[in-house]
């Protein structure tokens, strides 16, 4: 079982600030996904990255997959209160019927 470490665990910032959260492992992934979870709901898929060095942008969110496919980052520009939530990375390796989830980064954006 892969171990996925996310950092930081908690982040509280003011509206308008930028932030980056990280997802790291000692193992190589075939692909990696990022999810956002709001209180009382299930996680919702934001993006899938599959190629080493790949960068994907989703409005103010930028996702990067490390060249060696062992790590990933999520950068949010000009954070808004609506970005508040738990951000989870999930790694797929080998057979893709199962994935391993990181423990998450809890983000609070204060108006």
């Amino acid at each position: 079982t892969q171990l996925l470490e996310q950092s930081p665990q908690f982040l509280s910032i003011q509206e308008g600030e930028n932030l980056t959260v990280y997802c790291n492992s000692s193992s190589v992934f075939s692909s990696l996904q990022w999810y956002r979870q709001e209180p009382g709901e299930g996680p919702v898929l934001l993006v899938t990255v599959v190629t080493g060095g790949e960068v994907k942008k989703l409005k103010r969110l930028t996702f990067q997959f490390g060249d060696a496919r062992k790590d990933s980052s999520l950068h949010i520009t000009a954070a808004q209160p609506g970005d508040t939530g738990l951000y989870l990375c999930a790694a797929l390796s080998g057979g893709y019927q199962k994935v391993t989830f990181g423990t998450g980064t809890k983000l609070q954006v204060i108006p």
Partner: protein
Amino acid sequence: DAGITQSPRHKVTETGTPVTLRCHQTENHRYMYWYRQDPGHGLRLIHYSYGVKDTDKGEVSDGYSVSRSKTEDFLLTLESATSSQTSVYFCAIRSGSRDYGYTFGSGTRLTVV
């Protein structure tokens, strides 16, 4: 139109009683999963299914069983509930595509007293 629904949303049960949680999908996806989410542990896989009557264990399967008699329904049973099984349970579905992510249900908050 969520495509995946879980029932019940909340349940309180007594130690030692059996409990069944239901997951229903309308997407006709092959793969279905049960996860539990606990503070400090993230999402942990309990059981999953790759087709009707085809199931396998995840990393925290002890004390749980599953059944899938139809494509659309995946049941999770706690055979004899314990306080350590107090958690939020999520069902998820996934197509067979490599890049296709999970779609999660809204969860069932289970409290074992």
